[in-house]
């Protein structure tokens, strides 16, 4: 049991991303000596100001960007390249979805790449299109969908590949406030139903509190790091109007006001 659950954990030790400065001798760090353990099945939020290196950290975990130093393990194995175990939901659905494919074809992309037979593909895409609430829109093209619906397609598309880890880079940042609220509820529900490990990047304190079991605060760059980790011991679905919620909100807000 403990082995099975540790499989989906993320362990980061003294992780660095740096680039040489103009003179060549000095080194500039984007993120420096980041330590973090995200447990299997946990919803972890990375919260910090714009430009603090949240996305860099996420891209290193995804394997898109190479680290300059330190260690990164998924379960027990060291990783440095993208893999099917880690799925990424991007902020811009327009740049990450395939506009020449229908909703169904987008969702089945990963399955088609591993040459799964069509009936099986359809069964899986039906399930995940249903899970994200897009039944009836299977044959539409992304350009025919609203921003929120496109993000649902992205979510269904990565879930169809059955990854153990979801890496989400401000996926609702470009949505209007009401759609964002709906999507947060939906994501929270889907996470509880699928039991994935999630790292969710945002700069919105309320969003962090609505979604995360733990919230890691990143300091402003350069050489940024996770300075504090807050536990959010509130039950799901979360109520933004609850006094405990507000209390935590103020604590975190005070952290940034300093």
């Amino acid at each position, binding site marked *: 049991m403990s082995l099975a659950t540790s499989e989906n954990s993320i362990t980061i030790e003294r992780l660095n991303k740096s680039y040489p400065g103009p003179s060549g001798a000095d080194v500039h760090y984007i993120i420096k000596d980041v330590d973090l353990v995200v447990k299997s099945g946990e919803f972890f939020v990375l919260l910090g100001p714009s430009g603090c290196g949240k996305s860099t950290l996420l891209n290193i975990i*995804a*394997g*898109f960007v190479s680290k300059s130093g330190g260690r990164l393990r998924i379960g027990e194995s060291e990783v440095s390249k*993208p*893999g*099917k175990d*880690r*799925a*990424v939901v*991007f902020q*811009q659905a327009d*740049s*990450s979805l*395939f*506009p*020449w*494919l229908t909703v169904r074809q987008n969702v089945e*992309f*990963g399955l*088609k*790449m*591993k040459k799964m037979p069509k009936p099986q593909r359809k069964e899986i895409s039906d399930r995940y299109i249903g899970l994200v609430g897009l039944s009836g829109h299977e044959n539409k*093209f992304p350009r025919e969908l609203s921003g929120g619906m496109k993000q649902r397609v992205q979510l269904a*598309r*990565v879930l169809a*590949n059955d990854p153990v880890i979801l890496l989400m880079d401000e996926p609702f940042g470009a949505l209007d406030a009401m759609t964002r609220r709906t999507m947060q509820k939906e994501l929270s529900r889907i996470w509880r139903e699928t039991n994935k490990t999630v790292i969710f990047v945002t700069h919105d304190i309320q969003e962090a509190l609505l979604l995360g079991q733990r919230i890691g605060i990143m300091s402003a760059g350069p050489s940024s790091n996770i300075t504090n980790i807050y536990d959010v011991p509130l039950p799901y679905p979360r109520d933004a109007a609850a006094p405990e919620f507000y209390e935590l909100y103020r604590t975190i807000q005070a952290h940034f006001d300093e």
Partner: protein
Amino acid sequence: MKRFGNKWISLALLWIGGVAVWQLAAYLYGPEIVPGPAATLKGAAELLADGSLPKYIGISFYRVLTGWALGSLIGIPIGLVIGKVNAVRAFAEPFLNFIRFIPPIAFITLFLVWFGIGEQSKIALITYATLFIVVMNTLTGVLSVEEDKIRSARSMGASEWQIVLHVIVPATMPYMFTGIRLAMGTSYMAIIGAEMIAANEGVGFLIWNSRLYFRTDWIFVGLISLGLMGFVTDRLVGWIGRKALYRYGVVGTAPARR
């Protein structure tokens, strides 16, 4: 409905006005300098009667379409390789930027020496004229594929080859199509030049040869034929593109001439 009617009425008036100006110029300068609409029609009737006009149009069409199809078929894979493989691009880009400033017609004598006086040299010239435009556009398309698309395909388990086939090629489709369509215009310019210098048939030959008989009306017939040939092929290519490549985001509007 009313707007539709107005559009056709103003279009008809415009054409009548154009022909009237043409007729006026013919009247003012005399038929040797500016053959009027009637004289041009008469010239066209002569050329139709002896069968030379259909034959010339046919042979010019054949040269353009063969060379253009060949150039496109060769240009697309070359553009894909140059765009995808950084090492090849570093080598090829300066070469491309050097050679694309040499107009195809400047090569005509060399092509005659290399490919002979027959059809091959003309088709080679059109292939050359098409090739670089298609390569440049395909290359630009490959370079503008969003990184997020490639990253998401990779994290869904697509191999490098699958990424080329299922992401880069479809994402580049509108650029390839623009290249192919622009190349059509350049192909006509190149073939007329080639036929003027080194051919016994074709619309370019007709235009050039008419000077021997001082038949400016035949020159007008040649010019109008050229315009119509270009117009018809461009519309046809645009229509096919719109119908067949709609899902890739190809729109039917005519691209700017190079």
